[in-house]
Structure formats: structure tokens, C-alpha cells
């Protein structure tokens, strides 16, 4: 990253770059492309020196040849790198994703774009394909056709580089729950290639943030549903990813914890991260998300900012309308006359 020498010199930038190069050498980046300073087109997002986000710069800034540093907003704790003349590279682009399981067409040509720094909600009725979409984004499932680009990285061509940019929280999958909380977080970090000392430092921070410090010594299978959700979310954050893919992150989480998680996620988004989540809770999506996509039966029926999608009514009403309404209650007349 020494080639950025042409850019304006600023102590804060230098510090940020140092942390970038330091973490680069740690990760095994073999296809390093050093962007030339004069070729800079777009700097796609901001870089926080927050401990949660500091590694996220590596893979992306190397892999996407476009990204570089243009102008600096050198505040003390936030080095904001803004776009000069082009649109920033979206955090996620899906183009015409199709997926079928046997005869069942689960996804029927989903295309959407998630801008960097957005809090993106995916909503839909049960079985609409939300989880399938997120699994494909996370690289857990392979789409039958279509293109996925994560922050400029083509997920089909460079799956490992793309996965490095993402933190994933699946909904129905198990975790290695015979490990203690501490071991599980260590495992998350070590699989991502973080050095042990760093993993242990972040484990302590994450446990404090998610209020799990007391439970780190216990086996995860003894955790309550909400606690396992929290430790898995902590694990998804441990390598400070650029994009978070969360499937039903608030299910089974108590209101206090879910407020704490929301705070963490909102701070993450404020520092340039992108959150993509699926949820049943329309009220929650309406409150926290900046953009929303509605998926019904494997197709995208509405997409845009919350205001664009809901129009005059509440998101929930709009959602019911899009999905096709509850329908007339028919065939259950026997339920209206009680048998005793």
C-alpha cells in the first residue's frame, strides 16, 4: 500500500494505512494488487479504527483494484474515506439468482443491490426464500445460476476472498455446542486465521459487549436460545467483517439483549459496515432498517428505502398487501360453534 504516497499526507491516514499493511501481511493475500494512486476512482467506504472493524479493510482493499484512498476526513477516531467522483461499490450485488431444490423453485431470479453502510432488511412470509437467499450470499449454498458480488469481489471466482469479507449468523444451523463459549469464540477466530492473542483480546471485548462474560466457561449446549444466538453473533463479528449476513438475528432474544445487539449493529453500520438481515418482525425492520426487500415465493416483489416500500401505510400493512392478504376465513365454520 506504499503506492498511496501520492495522496495527501495526514497522520491519521498514515496510521490507518499502517494498520492495513500490518493486517495484510498477517492474512495470506497472494493476489495482492497494489492500487496506483492516480488510478483511484472510488473509495468505497469508510475505515474505522475501532477494534471490531480494523481488519475488514484488508481483503477488500486488495482484491478490488478500484478501491483506494482519495480524500481524508481526519478526525481522531474515525478516518472517513469518501468517494471522489464515482458511486461507491455496493456491499452486495445479486443478479438473477435462481435456486431449486428438486422440483421446488426456491428462488426465481432475485436481483438486488445493497449499498455500503446500509441496514438492509429482507422480509417475506414463511418459506419465501429468505434463508435460501442469505445462505447463497454467505456462500453456504451454491446458486444454480446468477452472479453474486460482495463489495466488488465476485463470489463465484474468489469464494475465499468473498467469504473473508462476511460475518455470518445462520438461523437453523447447529454450532459446535460442546465447546465452551470461550472455546467457540476462539474457534470462530482461529478459523478466520486470526492470531491467538488477537482472538483472545477480541473475545474479552465481545463477551463484555454481549454480556456473556459470566458464561464463557460454560458449554454452549447449556446456553439458552437467546444466549446461543448472542454468542454466534459475537462469533460472526470476531474477524471484523465488512458485511454482516444475519438470518433472524432477533428471534428468541429477550428485549434487553436485542436492544444491546441493535446498539452494536447500529454502531457498526455508522462506522461503515453493512448489515443484511432477515426478519419476521415488521415493526423492528421498520424501525432499524434503512432499506428493505420483500421476497414472496422466491421472487422480489418490492425493494427500496423503507419510505419507498411502505408508502402511506405501515410496513406491516404494506407487507400483508404485497403477500396477498390473509384471505377470507373459509372452511373453518365448525370452529365457530363450540362442541360443548
Amino acid at each position, binding site marked *: 500500500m506504499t503506492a498511496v504516497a501520492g495522496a495527501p499526507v495526514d497522520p491519521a491516514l498514515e496510521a490507518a494505512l499502517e494498520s492495513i499493511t500490518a493486517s495484510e501481511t498477517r492474512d495470506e493475500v497472494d493476489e495482492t494488487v497494489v492500487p496506483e494512486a492516480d488510478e483511484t476512482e472510488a473509495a468505497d467506504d469508510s475505515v474505522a479504527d475501532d477494534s471490531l472493524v480494523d481488519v475488514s479493510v484488508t481483503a477488500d482493499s486488495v482484491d478490488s483494484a478500484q478501491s483506494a484512498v482519495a480524500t481524508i476526513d481526519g478526525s481522531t477516531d474515525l478516518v472517513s474515506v469518501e468517494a471522489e467522483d464515482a458511486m461507491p461499490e455496493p456491499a452486495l450485488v445479486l443478479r438473477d439468482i435462481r435456486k431449486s431444490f428438486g422440483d421446488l423453485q426456491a428462488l426465481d431470479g432475485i436481483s438486488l443491490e445493497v449499498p455500503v453502510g446500509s441496514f438492509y432488511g429482507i422480509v417475506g412470509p414463511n418459506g419465501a426464500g429468505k434463508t435460501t437467499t442469505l445462505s447463497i450470499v454467505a*456462500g453456504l449454498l451454491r446458486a444454480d445460476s446468477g452472479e453474486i458480488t460482495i463489495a466488488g469481489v465476485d463470489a463465484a471466482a474468489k469464494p475465499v476472498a468473498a467469504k*473473508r469479507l462476511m460475518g455470518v449468523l445462520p438461523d437453523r444451523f*447447529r*454450532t459446535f455446542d460442546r*465447546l465452551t463459549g470461550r472455546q467457540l469464540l*476462539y*474457534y470462530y477466530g*482461529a478459523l478466520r*486465521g486470526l492470531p491467538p492473542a488477537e482472538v483472545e483480546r477480541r473475545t474479552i471485548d465481545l463477551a463484555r459487549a454481549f454480556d456473556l462474560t459470566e458464561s464463557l466457561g460454560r458449554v454452549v449446549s447449556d446456553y439458552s436460545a437467546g444466549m446461543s444466538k448472542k454468542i454466534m453473533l459475537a462469533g460472526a463479528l470476531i474477524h471484523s467483517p465488512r458485511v454482516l449476513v444475519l438470518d433472524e438475528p432477533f428471534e428468541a432474544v429477550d428485549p434487553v439483549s436485542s436492544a444491546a445487539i441493535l446498539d452494536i449493529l447500529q454502531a457498526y453500520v455508522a462506522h461503515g459496515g453493512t448489515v443484511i438481515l432477515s426478519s419476521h418482525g415488521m415493526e423492528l425492520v421498520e424501525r432499524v432498517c434503512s432499506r428493505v426487500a420483500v421476497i414472496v415465493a422466491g421472487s422480489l416483489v418490492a425493494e427500496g428505502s423503507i419510505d419507498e416500500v411502505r408508502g402511506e401505510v405501515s410496513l406491516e400493512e404494506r407487507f400483508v398487501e404485497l403477500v396477498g392478504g390473509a384471505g377470507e376465513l373459509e372452511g373453518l365454520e365448525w370452529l365457530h360453534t363450540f362442541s360443548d
Partner: protein
Amino acid sequence: MVAHILRLRLALLLGAFRGDPQKVTRGVVGALLLLAATVAACWALLGVQESSSAAVGAITVFCGATLTLAFALAPIVAAVTDPLDPRRFRVFALAPEPLAGALALAGLLSVPVLGLVALVACAAVVWVAAGATVVAAIMAAIIGVATCVLFARVSLGVAGIIFGDRRSRELSGLLLVTVLVIVVPVGVFLASLDWRGTVPGPLQQVVDILSFTPIGAAWAFPLLFTRGDASGVLALLIALGTVAALGFAWLALVRHFLSSIEKPLTTRERGGLGWFSVVPGTPGGAVAARSLVYWLRDRRYLVNTLVIPVAAVATVVPLLIAGVPANVAALVPILFVALFFGWLPHNDLAYDSTAIWMHVASGLRGLPDRVGRLVPILVIAIPVLAIGIPISVALHGRWAIAPAIVGVCASLFFSGLGLSSIASAASPYPVTPPGESPFQQPQRTGSSGAVPQALVMLGSLAVSAPSLWWTWLALTRTIEAASLALWVGVATGLVVLVAGVAIGAAVFTRRTGRIMEFAEAS
């Protein structure tokens, strides 16, 4: 200061008998056991007085060297905390030389060393009876005890430096298993030797070598002097050199401890990681640690592992009924153990159930996944084989066949692991999900897994055919074929293992999508 430290040491020794009744009971029982063992050993030692000078020499040197080795290794294996750790004297600003001397002297005041002193006194009596001079016997006793005490000090210090706070129950367990792997075969071998009246040839050879090593020289020189050649002087010089070298090492350690401090962070952060603190901090190491936790804690793995020895021993019964000679049948179970151990991880991936998503989502490459998963089976199987092979061969009765058995076992086991690495990535089949009874049949939606099971087992048998053939030749015709069977077996095993892991890694990397679909479906 010396008097101070000695008094401190004595107080610590007596302190073991105060306080928590449970701890005191344990201490008393331990001391009594040690006392009984010492008395028995002294009795046995005094009993060999009547034997020939050569037998006395062989026994005292062998046992002495073993004891010395035990003093050197015990502090490393047992993870004891030294109450007189030089680091604890750091705050007093003492000069290192007197402190090192005082601590070494205080090291004499411990229960095991007192037992050692009693034994050495008996040995001195025996030496004199066998013709050694009194002066030489007393010198040997003093030098021997000094060697043991200094060895214990130095290895305590070195263990502190190497392991630091990475010390955990898991690591101690591993080291203990390693010691067993070495001790049991040697013990079985010694027990099977022909002891009637004379020193068995192989033992004499070992003793001749031990007599001129740091651990054996002190015990050897009194009787070597009676030979009248230079060997006694040589052994004495080696013994004195050892004490001097250990003394310097101890002094250097004390100096190091007094002038350096450890990084304070490690203790807190390394805590509670279990196996994860033993393995290297790489993705492969983490997979290995995770697998170890599961193999040792998940009943599904435990049942699989425990069934193997039972099944293997059971195979002998039909063979005996069919009229196979007992000494040939004795060799069969260990081969089955090797075969089954190699076959065991052929569906390892399926046991993770949907938790495998962590490996897929983190972009873990195939190689660390494949290699990490093989670590627990290696940790379990190698000790079992190392202990089982000598026992089988001892039951068989002819030690010359041992290399062939090692070769066949290596071939069956390692090639099985190689083929399993491919099978578990290429065609996992459903198993009981985590947390359910290991005896419950899984709901099978796809293949039943009969094909990969059979392929791995038959495959490892097929590639082991050459090694098996030469073993058969060694058994029936010429024993020289045994060494050929060894080399062929080890070579096939390693080649198939490396190739299998490489192919399995490529398959894993390529098939992650399929693997997730399998995990979700089952």
C-alpha cells in the same frame, strides 16, 4: 540464608500434613505408598547380593538410570508447582549463586528424594558386597543422588520456561500418554526376556551403553572399577561431568529467573481454552482441538472408539475354533485394531451435522480441515498400537516378527486414514445427530453409506496386501521377510495417507456447497 531456606523447605514438607483433611489424607496415603514401595525395592535390591557381580551391575545400572530419567521427566509430565521456585525469591534481591546452592540443597528435603537416598544406601551395600571399594560406593551414592536432585531442579525450571502458562491438564495427559507409549513396550520386552540365572544378552547391551551416559554413569562406576581397566575412570568422569553441567545449568536458570519477568497477560487469557491452548493457533490447529474435544466428550465418538478393541479381540474366537494355531491368532487382533482405527474417521464430517457451516462460511481450506480431523484419531490410536503391538508379539512369542507387525499395522492404519480423508469429504452419509443416543439409527434419506464404508475398508486391505504377504512369509518361511514387510508397510501407509489427505482436501474445497446440502438434508 541456607538455613533459612532449609527451614522453609521443612516447614513446607510438614505443612502438607496440616489443613484440609482430604488433602492431608491424600498426602499421608501417598507418603505411605512411597514408603512401602521404597521398602520393597530396598528388600529386592538387598536380595540380589548373592547374584554374580555382572547381574548386580546390570540391575543397579538399569534401575538407577530409569530412576534418574524419572527424576528428570516427572516434573515435566506431572505439572507440579514448585513451592521453592526461584522466581518467588525475586523480590528479595538475593545473589544467584548462594540461592542456587541453597535451593539445590533444599531439593534434598523431599519425600521422593528421601526414598531415593534409602535405595541408594542399599545399592552401596550391594556394590560393596559385589566387590566394589567402600570409597567408590559412597562416592557413587553421593554423585547419584546429586544427579537426580539437580535433574529434577533443572527440568522443573526448563518446563517453566517452555510451557510457561500454557500448562494444562490436556498437555499433561498427552505427555503421560507419551511416557506410557515408551514405558509399556520396554516393560513388556524386558518381562519377556529369558532371565534364568544370567543377564539376558539384550539387557546387557543396553546396560553397557547406559553405563556411559549421564543418567547411568554414576550408578556404573563402582563396579566398573573392579574390572581394572579405564572404563571405571571414564564412567566416573562422565558422572562428575554430568553433575557439573547440571549445576551450571541450574545456576544459569536461577540467574535467568532472577533477572527476567514473564509477560503477565498470558495466564489470564490462556485460561479455559482446554485443548485449544495445546495446539498451534492456526485454522488447522483449531480444527484439531475442536475434534479432540468432540472425540473425548461426545458419546458417539466414544462408543465407536471403545467398540474397536472389543471387536478386535472377539475376532480371535472364530480363528481359534477354526483351528488356527494360538500363536498366530495372537497376532490377528492388533491388525484389526489398526484397520478399524484407520477406517474410523471415514464419515467424520457427518458427525458435525449442520455445524459444518462454520467451516464453510469461514472459507476454511480443505487441507487444515482434513489434517485437523485426523489429529484425535492419531492421538488415540498411536498409543493403543504402541502398547498393543508388543503385547501381541509377546503373546506370539517370537520377537523377530515384531517389525512385520509394525509394518502391517502402519500400512493398514495410515492408508485407512488416507482413504477416510477422501471418503468423509466425498460421500458423507447420515449419522445420529449430536446429543442423541449413539445406538439410535439415524433417519436415512439418502444413501446408507454402505459403499464408502466398504470401499475404505477393502481399499486399505488392498493396498496393505504386499505388506501382509511378506508378513505371512516371515511367519511361515523365512523370518528375514519381516524387515521387508516393515519398510513396505510404512511406505505404503505414508504414501496413501499423504495422497488421501491431498485428494480429500481438494474434494472438500470443491464440494463445500454439496457438503452443506448434505448437512441440511440429514
